[in-house]
C-alpha cells in the first residue's frame, strides 16, 4: 500500500527547495537564453542572422538540448538518496512511517516537478517571444520539441535516481552520473558510428536504427528530427530509416519506458 500523503510531503519539500535556492529560475533562464540565441544566431555560420524556418531552429536546439538536459537532470538527481544517506538523515526519515518506495517516489516527483517547470517555463517563454514571428504550424512543432525535451529530462532524472540508490557515497554517485552522461550523449553514438563503418553492409548495419532505441538521447533526437519530412530530406535520411523510427507516439512511448524502467530498478534495489 502506498501512502500518497507521504509522497506528496517529500515531493513538496524537494520542489520548494529547488524554487527557493533559485535552481528553477536559473535553469529556466538558461533555457530561454539558449533558445533565443539559437533562433536568432543559429545560422550565423552560413552568413545570416535572424529567424529561419522552425525545423532548422529546432534541429539546432535539439543538438544543444541533447547535451544540456541530460547533464542538468543527472546533476539534479544524483544526490537525492545518497545525499540523505551520507548526511545521516536517511535513517531518521526511514524511522518515520514512510516506506522506501514512498520516499523514492516523493523525491522523484518533486525533482521531476522542478525540472519540468524549468523546461516548460524556459522554453515556453522563448516560444512566446518567438510566437509573433513564426507561423502557427511552427508552434506546433515547437510544442512537440518542448514535450520531448521534458521526457528526455525525466528519463535522465530517473537514471540519476537509480545512480543515487546504487552508489554508496556521493563521490561515487557524481562520478557515475557524469559517466552515464558521457556514455549516452557522447560515446554511444560513436560506438554506433564505429559499428557502421566496420559493418556497414553486413547485418549489423541494418540493426543500427534499432540499437538507437537503447539510448534515450537518441530517441529524443529521432523524435524531433525524423518526424519531419523536410529534415529527413535535409539530412538525407529518408531511405535508411525504418518506418517505425518515424512514429512519434512509438518513440515517445519508448522514451517514457526510459522514465519507468530505471525508476523501477531503483525501487527494487533501494533496500
Amino acid at each position, binding site marked *: 500500500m502506498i501512502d500518497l500523503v507521504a509522497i506528496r*510531503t517529500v515531493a513538496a519539500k524537494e520542489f520548494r527547495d529547488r524554487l*527557493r535556492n533559485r535552481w528553477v529560475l536559473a535553469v529556466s533562464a538558461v533555457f530561454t537564453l539558449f533558445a533565443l540565441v539559437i533562433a536568432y544566431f543559429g545560422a550565423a555560420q552560413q552568413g545570416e542572422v535572424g529567424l529561419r524556418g522552425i525545423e532548422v531552429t529546432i534541429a539546432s536546439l535539439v543538438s544543444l538540448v541533447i547535451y544540456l538536459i541530460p547533464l542538468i537532470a543527472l546533476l539534479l538527481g544524483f544526490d537525492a538518496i545518497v545525499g*540523505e544517506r551520507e548526511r*545521516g*538523515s536517511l*535513517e531518521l*526519515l526511514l*524511522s*518515520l*512511517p514512510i516506506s522506501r518506495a514512498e520516499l523514492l517516489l516523493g523525491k522523484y516527483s518533486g525533482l521531476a516537478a522542478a525540472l519540468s517547470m524549468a523546461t516548460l517555463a524556459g522554453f515556453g517563454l522563448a516560444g512566446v517571444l518567438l510566437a509573433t514571428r513564426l507561423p502557427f504550424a511552427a508552434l506546433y512543432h515547437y510544442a512537440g520539441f518542448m514535450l520531448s525535451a521534458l521526457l528526455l529530462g525525466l528519463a535522465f532524472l530517473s537514471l540519476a535516481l537509480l545512480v543515487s540508490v546504487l552508489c554508496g557515497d556521493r563521490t561515487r554517485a557524481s562520478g557515475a552520473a557524469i559517466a552515464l552522461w558521457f556514455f549516452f550523449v557522447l560515446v554511444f553514438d560513436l560506438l554506433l558510428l564505429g559499428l557502421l563503418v566496420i559493418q556497414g553492409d553486413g547485418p549489423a548495419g541494418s540493426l543500427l536504427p534499432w540499437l538507437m532505441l537503447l539510448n534515450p538521447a537518441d530517441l529524443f533526437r529521432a523524435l524531433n528530427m525524423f518526424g519531419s519530412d523536410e529534415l529527413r530530406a535535409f539530412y538525407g535520411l529518408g531511405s535508411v530509416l525504418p518506418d517505425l523510427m518515424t512514429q512519434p507516439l512509438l518513440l515517445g512511448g519508448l522514451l517514457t519506458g526510459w522514465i519507468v524502467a530505471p525508476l523501477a530498478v531503483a525501487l527494487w534495489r533501494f533496500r
Partner: protein
Amino acid sequence: MNPPVIELHQVERRFGTLAAVDGVSFRVERGELFGLTGHNGAGKSTLFKMMLGLLEPSAGSVRVLGTPTRGAAFRAVRRRIGYLPEQLALYDNLSGAETLAYFARLKGAKLQQVVPLLDKVGLAHAAQRRVGTYSKGMRQRLGLAQALLGDPQLLFLDEPTNGLDPEAIHAFYQLLSELRAQGVSMILTSHILAEIQQRVDRVAILKAGKLAALGTVQSLREAAALPLGVTLSTSRPLTTDELARLDRHAPLRQAADAGQLQLACPPLAKMALLAEVAALGAAVRDVRLAEPSLEDVILGYAGVTP
C-alpha cells in the same frame, strides 16, 4: 502487568562472518528509562537499528510496543515512537518551524504541535531562523522536538547529549524527567557512562555483540564486587602492625609515601575497614572513599570475559 515496550529474544545480526549482535535478549518495561552502553563497535547502533525496524535481524525476534518490527503492522507503531539519531542531520535551508512541520506531516502528527514543541525545547525564539544558523545544542534540541512529534510512548535516544555543554546536558535530562513523569518510556545509549548511571533505571552492557550485563547500576556494582577506592591521609607513618590490620580488610594498593595510603576495599568490608581506621585515631587526618562508576563495572567485565 503491562506488556514490555521492547522485547528482544535471542536477537542476532551478522554482516558476513561478523556477528555484530549475537544472541541478545532483554525487555524494557513500560515507563522505564533504560540505558544501553558498551564500547564503540560493541553493537549498540546495530541493535538500535533493529529496534527501529531499519535493519532486519538475522535471527531472533524484536517486538516494539507489542508489534514485530518485521512486517507491515510496524508502520503504525512508527507513529508512536520517537527517534533522535546519533548523527543528527537536519535540513540547513529550512527554518526550525518548517523542519518540524515537515517531520510532522511525514509522521502523521498534528501541525498544531509544532509551536508548543519548539517552546518546550526552548527554541520558540529561533522558530523562523534557518537551521543552518543553529548551534550544535540548538540542533540537538530541535532533534528532540522532532522525536516528540505525535506524543510518542517510546523514545529512542542515541547518544543524545553528544557534543552538548554541561548546562545543556542538565537541561536535556530535566526535559527527560518531565517526559518520564508523563509515562513516556525511553531507551538511550551513551558512552559517557558516568552521565547515565545516575539517571537510568536499568542498564544493558554490550560487549562484542553479546549482552555482558543487565540490571540496575547498583546490582551490577554488587555483582561485580568491585572494590571501593580508599585513600587515607596520615599524620605519621603507620607501623607494620597497623598496616597489617588494614590490609586484612582491604589490600594495600600503594605503599605509603608522603602521608598518603591507598587501599582497595571490597564492598562488604567497608564498615570493618572504617572501624580500623577510626581506631587509628589522630594518626589519620582524612579518609576519602571513591565508589566504582559504571565505567569501572564495564572495565571489570572487560577484564573477566575473554
